[in-house]
């Protein structure tokens, strides 16, 4: 059974945005630090390191995951997607990214990577989400700048666009409970 010693570094290999990568990691190295400082993929941001803010959300084998609650060694053999892997080309934006820009769905942009990664995973599962569905998905992230409404608008717009529909008005908004 593979046992990785605490004090030594171990080779971890996985695919990052479709390309094979590897790095040396102690067992305690967090996936956030491995991606950012080990592999230079600094688009994944670190906001709380206790799994609440969602800024570090990545996809592991297509499913969303808090990178701060993942050890680098747990990425072994996985297919990892980060915000750097969402656009179809380096000089283009994805449909969702373009909708974010159109709707001013970001200000400082620190939380944005995680939200984009979550929405990307979710829309593959549920291509026709309601506004409330999207509010619940985005509810797993903290954004301190936008007040969320432009993010929800962008996500609805992008989902419709990905379904090949013309842009439509958002459905009736559920009043939020506080």
């Amino acid at each position, binding site marked *: 059974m593979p046992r990785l010693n605490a004090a030594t570094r171990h080779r971890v290999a996985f695919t990052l945005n479709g390309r094979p990568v590897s790095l040396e990691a102690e067992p305690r190295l967090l996936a956030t630090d491995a991606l950012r400082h080990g592999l230079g993929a600094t688009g994944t941001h670190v906001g*709380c390191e206790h799994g609440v803010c969602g*800024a570090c959300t990545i996809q592991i084998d297509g499913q969303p995951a808090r990178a701060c609650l993942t050890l680098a060694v747990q990425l072994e053999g996985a297919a990892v997607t980060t915000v*750097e892997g969402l656009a179809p080309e*380096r000089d283009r934006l994805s449909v969702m990214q373009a909708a974010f*820009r159109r709707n001013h769905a970001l200000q400082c942009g620190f939380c944005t990577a995680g939200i984009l990664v979550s929405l990307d995973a979710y829309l593959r599962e549920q291509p026709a989400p309601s506004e409330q569905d999207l509010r619940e998905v985005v509810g797993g992230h903290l954004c*301190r700048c936008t007040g969320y409404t*432009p993010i929800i608008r962008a996500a609805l717009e992008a989902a419709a666009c990905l379904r090949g529909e013309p842009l439509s008005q958002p459905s009736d908004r559920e009043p939020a409970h*506080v």
Partner: protein
Amino acid sequence: MKIETISWTGQSLERVEDAALLTGRGRFIDDLGVRPGTLHAAILRSPHAHADILSVDVAAAAVMPGVAAVITGRDLARLTTPMVAGLKVAVENWPMAVERVRYVGEPVAIVVAADRYLAEDGLDAIEVEYRPLPCVVDPLASLEPDAPVLHDRAGGNLVSDRRFRYGDPKAAFAKAAHRVEVTIAYPRNTGAPMETFGVVAEYDPHEDAYDVLANFQGPFSIHAVLARCLKVPGNRLRLRMPPESGGSFGVKQGVAPYAVLIGVAARIAGAPVKWIEDRLEHLGAAVAATNRVTTLKAAVTAEGRITALDWDQLEDCGAYPRAPEPATLYRMHGNMTGAYDIANIAIRNRVVLTNKAPTGLVRGFGGPQVYYALERLMQRIAAELGLDPLAVIRTNLIPGGAFPYRTASGALYDSGDYVKAFDLALAEGRLADVQARRDAARAAGRRYGIGFAAVVEPSVSNMGYITTVLTAAERQKAGPKNGAQATATIALDPVGSVGVHVASVPQGQGHRTVLAQVVADVFGMPCEAIRVVVDLDTGKDAWSIASGNYSSRFAAAVAGAAHLAATRLRDKLAMIAAAQLGVAPAQIGFAGGAVFAKGNPASTLPFARVAALSHWSPALLPAGVDQAIRETAFWTPPELSAPDEEDHVNSSLCHGFIFDMAGVEVDAETGKVRIDRYVTMHDCGRVLHPGMVEGQIRGGFAQALGATFYEELAYADDGAFLTGTFADYLLPTATETPDIEILHIETPSPFTPLGAKGVGEGNCMSTPVCLANAVADALGVAQLDLPLTPARIAALVAAPEPALPESHRERAVGPGAAKPGDRTLRGQGQARVAAPPDVVWAMLLDVDALASIIPGCHGVEKLSETHFKADVTIGVGPVKGRYKAQIMLSDLDAPRAATLSGSVSGALGTGGGSGRVTLTTAGEGGTLIAYTYEAAVGGKVAAIGGRLLDGAAKAIIGQFFAALSRRAAPARPGFIARLLGRRP
């Protein structure tokens, strides 16, 4: 002043910033590379609210693998001087504790190591011996004569007490038909940007110079504070700021003390040092808005017209009055009458220190505290006089024709039409709709309320307002302070393309986009042709004392300065082109990337050719033009003068207006509030980018929603900090934040280059009180303090509680805590032991017995007959820590009763408690052990693991008595285990 042709400014263009941010190519401080050999810092922080530091033993930490240096407060004190504050008071503002800690989370030592993991390992190895002191967390308690004093040399905790009188409030109160009064305890909260602080510092011993990269939002006046603290002239502190910053909301001003700490760490370590604050550090010790106790009285006529206000504000700045505090208390000084025309004001402003983290800039900066009192008062006036709250607001609003309007305390409101904005907000059926919804809800027996708030949003603060805390004589001695220098530089390169630089680092406000719009309009160029750089370097960029991104000054001051610089450069280009085309400069126009003679389309030059001329052929420059390569404009408005002899101060240049209306429904059963409608009307002068203005309003609203219902930086009475994680400091998410309706009118500011005013903070001022007024209306209550948690709201309307049923009366009910946030753990229990009381008693006094009873004990040392010292590992589940414990026995009544008290301290925090144990004979040779206990936990565990504590304490105390029982009666462990419910 106005610009002639506008094509870009005022449009909601897509932001130039966004593509990089959306694709993961942002350049935040932790995304930038560092020099090879850069070390990483971690900071040890105080678990105590107030304690003397007896010793800091770093020997073990210093030899840990990878550790390069360990820095203590004494090391810091050798190399720096305390940071200056805005107050003349004998308080030493060290950025790291030297001899005493005064709040939980205060830095005590820094470990510098090869990486952050190793640095944190080093922290675990530092041994600090503290002598805990009594502490005070409540500002009113801090004023009491017997309150613990934080800074002995200051003589007390009250560090400033100033009274102001404008007009004749005494006479107005004497003849008032009514007096209405509110008392408010405004809580502590914070901006909580998603990116925490970061610093990378380097020290050159030969030049005695510091180079500090930090996601600061200054440099403003703080650069001077830092240089002085580091004991270098300003030109030997090079402060650089990265291009992107992940939000600030004022808070990133608080990175300043860490620039000193990490600078000194780099100096001692002899290598560049990097530190990225973690979220626990941020919530516990970064920057809090002030909590404030306010009593506000109004003199009111029978018709509801206010003739005077009497403010009594008690400001709590935490443990140190850190620069620029007490600015939070004085930022609103000119506009203490809000949107109302009130001639007479009395103000008493006191600043008090308590054992909590120091305060500083947080979005709204004094506005939430002031308007919560003022607008609650407006609602109370209506309620107490039986008037319509809207009528009370409208009758007191400053009339439309009165601008520029001078307030009683000296602000000059630049422009506005408050009555018109107010009427428009309610028009088109908006008020009628909310009223109809209220009536329908109430008819159905539901609790629905409507709230309003009218607010003046100040922006572009006067550097001199802070000096209002000093007396006129003290100000004279210190020299006058005033103004709001803003600067921008426009440069033309040798191919004639345009670059812009400003001394205002954005934290998401889209500076690069707006500046490109403004400058493109001046030069008649496509917006995308303008390149804007916003990272800042005090070593080579133009900046001044007011430079930075705060006080909502970007649109009004910084974009205006860019417009000025561009206009100056354009006028020079016009002279160059005029010489080339043989027309008068006044005939030259700029459009479509070309420079042309007006009325003669054939007479045109490419913009780039004219713009490059100063580089390539300066000999062709016409007389009167030195160069048209680079223009740096500095702009400060003449309206911002220093406070006068009578303490009048124009505390801000611009004054926007907001009128908000909320309709809410309260669920009395759950204490939760549903926001049904929210309308916010703004007048922020000329709107430069509607999409960004909407973004500021929505973002401010969401933060205000947090302040209203969720957010509090909470402390227990013993100074323990309770909200150290995002599981306890709750930010609103997408499921809590409703959509809102945003309205605008535009009355351009006559005082700013572009007519724009700030808009970044208004809803943080208006929304909390608007929502509170709506909740008060729904519940029919007078007193409401934030945050409006479910428990607070439910308590306001709760009927008497159904009694404990008769059949349960004999059952003991665990005593509840006195108030939410009191984390005192209380409990009781009993155990039956098959050994007589004297045997059990002997064990409580026996070292060996105790060693086997105390959970996780590694050894007991007897200090006296009744005082023991132990080394223990305790915890529940995976949460275990090693602690030093002291156990004392008192009130001995052998062999019947004793009080056991103890304290523990370790890396996870501190704990203390006491319990009374009684032994009674039970059955044959048996003893019934009964115990009650009270315990309190502080430090890290209290801040981050609040939800663990009850269970943990219960489990550990259970373990103690289980072990006691086992040892007293080893023959029958099964019986004991059954009684105690569970194995340890």
